[in-house]
């Protein structure tokens, strides 16, 4: 496709698809291959793209109605009995709304529940701040034992959805609504907790998660043209963080820029800062929402307004280089 970036020859753009569609496809596939997988949804089947699973395995699907608290508890009960429940609703209702249910009945009780959260972040768009959670990564990563994954595109979301069935323990899988460039190869092996180096570089390490990987890649195209050598790393698993990869890169470049569709407080940037400050302190710039709520708008407009545009990544890298 013409959108492909010359800085990323191994990661050409193969289309534009929504990460939630990747979840739907992954759920259907893992439902076929693993009969322990059950799915629950709080009245958002179409939004979460769960139709294919439901059609293939109606007996293993639980429509929960608009009852997210009960959904988390029922999922914990199904997991107790040996099933692998995947819960589906918007990120806001998957986390903040049911935090104590997740904390007590799932995380503290070590239940093998996969909390699958769509419509995360600003790119939910027109529905506005009531539905655009920007605090969910922080909320979930603070829970002991919780794995937190925010895939970057359709293929990675599909791969992650399949991979988490094989991981015993609670998982928070965060994805989104809009169509978004697909850059990960279909056959790329997804490993929980292992970051992916998309491009090596020497001047700055750009760590990006979720939709922001594309912003970081597009920014890199400009930065390279300006003579700045960027190392671009996709951190799909925010917890457990790939500390070894982070430190290897940071020791080489000496500078960090983090990119996430999340509040700057408590997200990927803080996770990476924590590792660096302890092991190898370096200048760091955050591309993240500056401790605010979102609002209604088109995804692209919102990303620009809230400092998550491609130009914002470029500016953050230049600020970091200048420090």
């Amino acid at each position, binding site marked *: 496709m013409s959108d492909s970036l010359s800085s990323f020859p191994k990661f050409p753009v193969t289309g534009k698809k929504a990460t939630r569609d990747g979840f739907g496809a992954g759920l259907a596939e893992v439902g076929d291959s693993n009969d322990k997988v*059950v799915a629950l949804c709080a009245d958002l089947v179409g939004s979460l793209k769960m139709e294919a699973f439901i059609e293939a395995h109606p*007996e*293993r699907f*639980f429509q*929960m*109605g608009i*009852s997210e*608290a*009960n959904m*988390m*508890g*029922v*999922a*914990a*009960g*199904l*997991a*107790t*009995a*040996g*099933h692998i*429940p995947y819960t589906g609703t918007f990120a806001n209702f998957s986390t903040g709304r049911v935090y*104590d*249910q997740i*904390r*007590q*009945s799932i995380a*503290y*009780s*070590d*239940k093998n529940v996969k909390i699958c959260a769509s419509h995360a972040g600003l790119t939910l768009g027109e529905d506005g701040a009531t539905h655009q959670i920007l605090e969910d990564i922080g909320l979930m990563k603070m829970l002991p034992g919780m794995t937190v994954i925010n895939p970057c595109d359709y293929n990675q979301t599909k791969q992650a959805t399949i991979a988490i069935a094989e991981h015993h323990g609670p998982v928070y899988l965060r994805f989104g609504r809009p169509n978004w460039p697909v850059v990960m190869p279909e056959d790329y092996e997804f490993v929980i907790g292992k970051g992916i180096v998309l491009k090596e570089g020497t001047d700055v390490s750009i760590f990006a998660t979720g939709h922001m990987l594309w912003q970081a890649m597009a920014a890199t195209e400009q930065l390279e043209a300006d003579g700045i050598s960027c190392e671009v790393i996709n951190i799909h698993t925010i917890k457990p963080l790939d500390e070894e990869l982070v430190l290897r890169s940071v020791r080489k470049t000496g500078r960090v820029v983090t990119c996430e569709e999340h509040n700057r407080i408590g997200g990927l940037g803080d996770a990476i800062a924590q590792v660096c400050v302890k092991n190898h302190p370096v200048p760091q710039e955050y591309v993240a929402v500056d401790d605010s709520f979102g609002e209604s708008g088109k995804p692209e407009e919102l990303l620009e307004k809230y400092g998550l545009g491609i130009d914002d990544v470029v500016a953050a890298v230049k600020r970091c280089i200048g420090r």
Partner: protein
Amino acid sequence: MANLQELQRTATQVRRDIVRQVAGIGTGHPGGSLGCADLLTALYFGVMKHDPSFNMEGKGEDVFIMSNGHISPLFYSVLARSGYFDVAELDSFRRMGSRLQGHPTTHEGLPGVRVATGSLGQGISVAAGMAAAKKLDGDDRWVFCLTGDGEQQEGQVWEAALFGHMYKLDNFIVICDRNHQQIDGATEDVMDLMDVSAKWAAFGWHTMKVDGNNMEELLATLKAAKALRGHGKPIFIEMHTTMGSGVDFMMKGHAWHGKAPDVEQTKTALAQLEETLGDY
């Protein structure tokens, strides 16, 4: 199954265990524990098919979830007395490093506990999930869940009630400890529950009532409840109890919800409870 007199004697020892655990550490919740002692004795020593070697999944077994986790000294006594762990471990109740945490958890690996409870309103949903799993797995055993009456003030309870009806969980029995007491006073004064059974009936459940401090009546009611299998409805039992049942000075109001007896009070309490099975 133990006979009536044996069950009553077991319940008396369980009550001693409750008082001694709470008195031993100086904290805990004796009131509701004593009130529900007869029910848990009936379940664990009479009604439920269960395996003290403990398997988390509970396949082929009846499982019990105690949503009102604060009455943990009762749960621990019954689990220990039925062989899940050594009764001597009751002495570690609420102590640092103990598996017998203030509220029951799976985190320390205590056999018999399947989920952490005590943050109210959540256990019924978890139990409903286990009942749904039994349906899915073709497992014809039962799921029992105990909930407090104050707990009925939590919205999640009613989400779970809708779910139980929708999925026709006729393998699921929810028992509500209707002692009319909660921390801040009588339920009528704190947040009036009115007719609890009428609410569950309106949510599509089969409802029953029982005197929860009458072993004979408890056994008969649980038997009648189990006979309702196949009707496609989950079952709700409004269980009337007296908080503090078995210890006269604890049976007045809500004062003993979460308070430990002092040395003299402990002596008085234990004098009212015969040591039937041997203290730990």
